[in-house]
């Protein structure tokens, strides 16, 4: 196994030092087989994404575990959690093991499957959560993402049941009766565009209910893709009371607003929808404060024909793995420790994922990424690795700070010189 010496690297913005990666861990010493000039580069613990759609099995035309893994590595990730809304749905030990195995074969990031909460994501009956937990995939996070576990009794049971194996329910908070036919954030812009509104209260009402349920049964709750200022307030109060709730925000909800829908270009159609500038402001503050614990991409690849069409007929979702860190950098600035906290350490901790999100000190697993903070990059969709790149990034033509130069998974490079090694 080749060892690497990262010369002159700045660990989380600290003064330059040398870092040696040997036998999968960060080692002492000052020599290695290969020297990488890392002057001007910042080392972060490998990023961990709790919310990725890899689409395999079922929609390999949009993304595969391998292409999604490559996009992740290029984005600085060393672990991603693959959502369960595949076809077939990841609601059995068989499917989660298949996804987990495909991830191992791709070998670019650790792919950790998320199991469905309910059979077929239908919201009727619990899936075999225990079987998925004890499978080779070792599932700890369960989510019907794409759908809300809307039935309060079922949600209560799910929250309780997973306590037996330290599981966590990640809720897609969307009261379905309030969002029937919804196309975008309900507000001035939806009124002007004649698109059916997705009211903020549909998210806030579910989060409010779920934190009360989690409190009642003493379980952990994770809230996916928080998108409104009102949700932030609900979370703030719940956390102040000591409810065991964590929450994520996507890069796009930190940067983009509903005004973009005015083009009717479905590249901006996403669920939950892009909100207003005041929501964006509240989400940013909450992320800094820690009311929102982590950034998660909700990387959602789609086939071209599912985006190159009328807004109402397009599927919601945008790719995000390769642009997440640059977007967060543009929002938070070079606050490296905060970025490591929100994009690596805390997501690993929420998921109970060992070996990721650890400090870059001697003896730790060598999962890390090197970023050039001085680089500015104009996002060119054709350069993205995700299979659905062409029509599915909202950042085409946007200049974003930071370039991911290299990523190491257990001491092996998955990205070198900004290119995937395989």
């Amino acid at each position, binding site marked *: 196994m080749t060892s690497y010496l990262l010369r002159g690297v700045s660990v989380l913005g600290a003064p330059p030092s040398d870092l040696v990666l040997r036998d999968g861990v960060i080692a002492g010493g000052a020599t290695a087989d290969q020297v990488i000039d890392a002057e001007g580069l910042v080392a972060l613990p490998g990023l961990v994404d709790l919310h990725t759609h890899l689409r395999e099995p079922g929609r390999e035309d949009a993304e595969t575990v391998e292409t999604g893994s490559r996009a992740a590595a290029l984005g600085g990730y060393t672990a991603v959690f693959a959502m369960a809304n595949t076809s077939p749905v990841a609601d059995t030990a068989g499917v989660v093991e298949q996804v987990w195995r495909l991830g191992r074969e791709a070998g670019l990031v650790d792919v950790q499957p998320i199991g469905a909460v309910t059979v077929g994501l239908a919201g009727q009956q619990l899936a075999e959560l225990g079987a998925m937990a004890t499978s080779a995939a070792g599932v700890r996070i369960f989510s019907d993402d794409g759908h809300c576990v809307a039935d309060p009794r079922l949600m209560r049971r799910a929250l309780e049941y997973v306590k037996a194996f330290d599981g966590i329910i990640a809720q897609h908070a969307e009261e379905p009766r309030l969002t029937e036919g919804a*196309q975008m954030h*309900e*507000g*001035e*812009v*939806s*009124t*002007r*565009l*004649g*698109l*059916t*509104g997705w009211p903020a209260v549909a998210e806030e009402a579910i989060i409010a209910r779920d934190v009360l349920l989690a409190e009642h049964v003493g379980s952990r709750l994770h809230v996916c893709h928080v998108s409104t200022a009102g949700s932030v307030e609900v979370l703030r109060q719940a956390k102040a009371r000591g409810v065991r709730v964590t929450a994520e925000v996507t890069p796009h909800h930190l940067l983009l607003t509903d005004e973009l829908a005015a*083009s*009717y*270009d479905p590249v901006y159609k996403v669920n939950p929808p892009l909100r207003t500038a005041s929501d964006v402001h509240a989400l940013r503050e909450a992320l800094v404060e820690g009311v929102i614990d982590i950034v998660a991409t909700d990387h959602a690849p789609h086939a071209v*024909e599912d985006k*190159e*069409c*009328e*807004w*109402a*007929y397009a599927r919601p979702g945008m790719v995000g793995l390769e642009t997440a860190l640059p977007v967060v950098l543009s929002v938070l600035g070079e606050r490296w420790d905060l970025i490591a906290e929100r994009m690596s350490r805390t997501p690993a901790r929420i998921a109970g994922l060992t070996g990721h999100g650890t400090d870059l000190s001697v003896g730790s697993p060598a999962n890390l990424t090197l970023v050039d903070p001085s680089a500015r990059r104009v996002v060119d969709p054709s350069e993205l690795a995700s299979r659905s790149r062409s029509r599915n990034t909202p950042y085409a033509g946007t200049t974003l700070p930071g370039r991911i130069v290299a990523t190491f998974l257990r001491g092996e490079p998955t990205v070198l010189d900004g290119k995937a090694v395989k």
Partner: protein
Amino acid sequence: MIKHLRSAADLDAPTATLILDTAAEMAALAGREVKKLPTLRGRTVVNLFYEDSTRTRISFEAAAKRLSADVINFSAKGSSVSKGESLKDTALTLQAMGADAVVIRHPASGAPHRLAAWVDGSVVNAGDGTHEHPTQALLDAYTMRSRLGRLDGLRVAIVGDVLHSRVARSNVLLLTTLGAQVTLVGPPTLIPLDVSAALSPSTKVSYDLDSVLPDMDVVMMLRVQTERMQDSYFPSAREYSRRYGLDLARMRKLPEHAIVMHPGPMNRGMEITPEVADSSRSTIVEQVANGVSARMAVLYLLLGGKA
């Protein structure tokens, strides 16, 4: 001149006025024995209709034909569209056929915006989802102007299902541009939140039709689909018409000169009683005739005709 007419917001006051003035010239033509102008000879206008709307399609067809354009009617039924061809592929087909203008009616809001990105010709929105119907607003404005002599300062009530109405959106935008004062009236469930901020700050909202009528020059009744009561927008058709329907008693509250409009098709007995619809204040049939003139003006100007 603008290239596309996707929204009434594409029109500033001079452009909108130019279209109305041109429509007046076109209307004068209708009185002649030979109703045809050679202006658009050799140009191709495609009517691309994804929704059944015989009246709008016929109106556009008559408009294009009176300008001597070649007209191709492309309707969703019995064409490749119903076999699942995408809007983009259809657009590329029309592009290859050399369409100079595409008139599109589509159930999805924003479809004309998408289409405009894929064809070189002009795109005219003939109604998209719950978004807009700008030529309806033009013919309505034309009707108001010819009946009442002006638009500036005119007080117009638009009554009914504003939430789902493309006619309402286009009318608010165009009328405001031309200096009219619009009041939206209906049950709160059918008036979108933030509507004034979204469309124009001068737009007023009222939930009480009776209190609004005495101050109006124009009252425009919108079609209200009875299916809306299944979604709890209102309890029953009867309650709706009692609170927001225009009957003779309410019509008498209007000033003497005020007119009653309806974009059609009407639900007689629901939002408007037959006596009102057929009264001398009603411009409903006139609106249909004016539709051809307004659409002639739009096609003529978009395709480069001189004013």
